[in-house]
């Protein structure tokens, strides 16, 4: 997937949320306000298109905190390029879900 790939607004919002540090499904739901039936399928498609990739948290960390391990999502290189293109297309995206660096500014 190249950087010029055009995303729908929902997909761009989810990509922006993952980039902003909301790296698991429930946090993306909370940030975007989208229901689970929209967020998880969208993340499957983004992963299929290699815009994000997932990895399981180490079991030892989860055991130490007495909770089950979570699946975390991270932007790929192609995902970052696509997000850049989507920000130009949807200028309000960064205002809706600001990244931590932007918040500090």
């Amino acid at each position, binding site marked *: *997937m190249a950087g*010029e*790939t*055009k*995303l*729908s607004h*929902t*997909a761009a919002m989810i990509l922006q949320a993952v980039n902003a540090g909301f790296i*698991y*499904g*429930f946090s993306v*739901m909370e940030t975007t306000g989208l*229901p*689970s*039936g*929209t*967020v*998880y*399928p*969208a993340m*499957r*498609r983004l992963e*299929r*298109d290699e815009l994000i990739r997932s990895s399981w948290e180490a079991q030892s960390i989860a055991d130490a905190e007495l*909770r*089950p*391990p*979570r*699946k975390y999502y991270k932007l790929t290189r192609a995902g970052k390029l696509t997000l850049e293109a989507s920000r130009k297309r949807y200028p309000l995206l960064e205002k809706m879900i600001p990244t931590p660096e932007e918040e500090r500014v």
Partner: protein
Amino acid sequence: MSLHRVSLFSIGNQSLLRLAAFLVPRRLRSEWSREWRSELWHVRQERSAEGPFCWHTEQEITDFCLGAFQDALCLRQQSAPTVAPLSRRFASPAQCLLLLATIAAAVYGTAQLLPGVQSAVLVSPYRVPRHLMLISQSSPAAEGPTITAAQFRAWQARRQSLFSTFAFYQPVRHTIEIAPHRIEGWTIARSSANLLDLLELPHRVSESTLPQLVLSDQAWKRYFGNDPHAVGRVLRMGDREVQVAAIIPAVQWNLPGNVDAWLQEPDDRAHAIPDAAKGFLIGQLNPLNRHAPFTTQWSMIASTVSGQPEYFTCILLSSRSSSTFSLFLFMVLLACIALPATTSIPLGEYPDAHHKLARATRFRRWIFLVSKFALIAPTVYYLSLDLAYMSGSMHAETSQYIQIISSFAACLFALRWALRDQRQRCPVCLGRLSNPARVGHPSRNFLAWSGTELICVGGHGLLHVPEIPTSWFGTQRWLYLDPSWEVLFPETPLASPGSL
């Protein structure tokens, strides 16, 4: 009490996830379940932190779990092999024409394999078909034998001006002993000795004094298993012996009467056919007679054996074989007349005031429509023949009825499809339009148009199809999009609209 309720809801939510997991492909199921169970645990922890049992919280958690079904279905679709729907397979004009050509080739190939179709489409198996007439005493539609042997003998004995000679055959059931202890019931045509000579069908004249039996191709295959040494064999027919003289190929006989073999009686034996026995009569027109009619069918009045004048119908043999194509052409004409009742004929309005399309582009659109018609015509013709002559034992009249009905229905359906398909294609790229959307309300028809809007995925334009044709919006209208719209039409869309 509230703790009991929470655990009850927790079990319910877990059950929902387990149920949804069945929709996920087996190889992905364990990881998918692990992620959703983990997420559910975190959701419950987060929501429980807000306070004790609350119906609203449990409803939110249940809603979260219900989303698992959509996720499971999404995963299932992703891992399933993509099978494009039939309408999508027609998307590009090349694909559409290729599919039509494939269907036409398949139908034509089937026709080549069916011997009934072969004999029906044969132009004429006889060498002088322009001079051979089938004479019957009643209406031409009658398929059974109508001429008595006495009538044949009377005409043969009398000097004729219209016909130079006659041949007669009478199909009868006979038992044939093919081998010891193997007796079959055959339909044998007892014919005058000149029948095959008159038709100029290839057969061998044997020196043997035994009556000559000419087998049909069907009987040779069925009873002799394609044995090349069948010719010359002596068979027992009733109380006398006959010798197999020849085998007539399937395509070389298209006269009425579904016979297994022809028994050529010497003239002295031919007189043994009872006078009252009815059969088929072939007459050869006298080529020197200048008054012979040039039409393919006519009626004549001739005296019968009893001296009474009677009407006889004469049909040119060559016209019998060409009737399948004439029927097809007539049904095409009827289908064209009926077509406006099933769909509108105009292809729509394509205003070119602002968008002057290249002449080649406009020409390509018409070429595509003509190509579809050109492929549909042989497909419908051979399809109707395949259906009509599928069974060799079917009555000729029944076959004609099947051909009439099937060619009319197939032609009407195919023409309707070709026009509708053409209307739902972009005039620029000829791709199928997609994403139909309803616009407006029929109740506001006087204020604004209402109907369906379709879009070209290449971004060339929109098609507006009115739901109720009006004086100002009578037919579908094409709206060209200018280049400023290109930003909305990516070359490789990530997902189809509505998927994300």
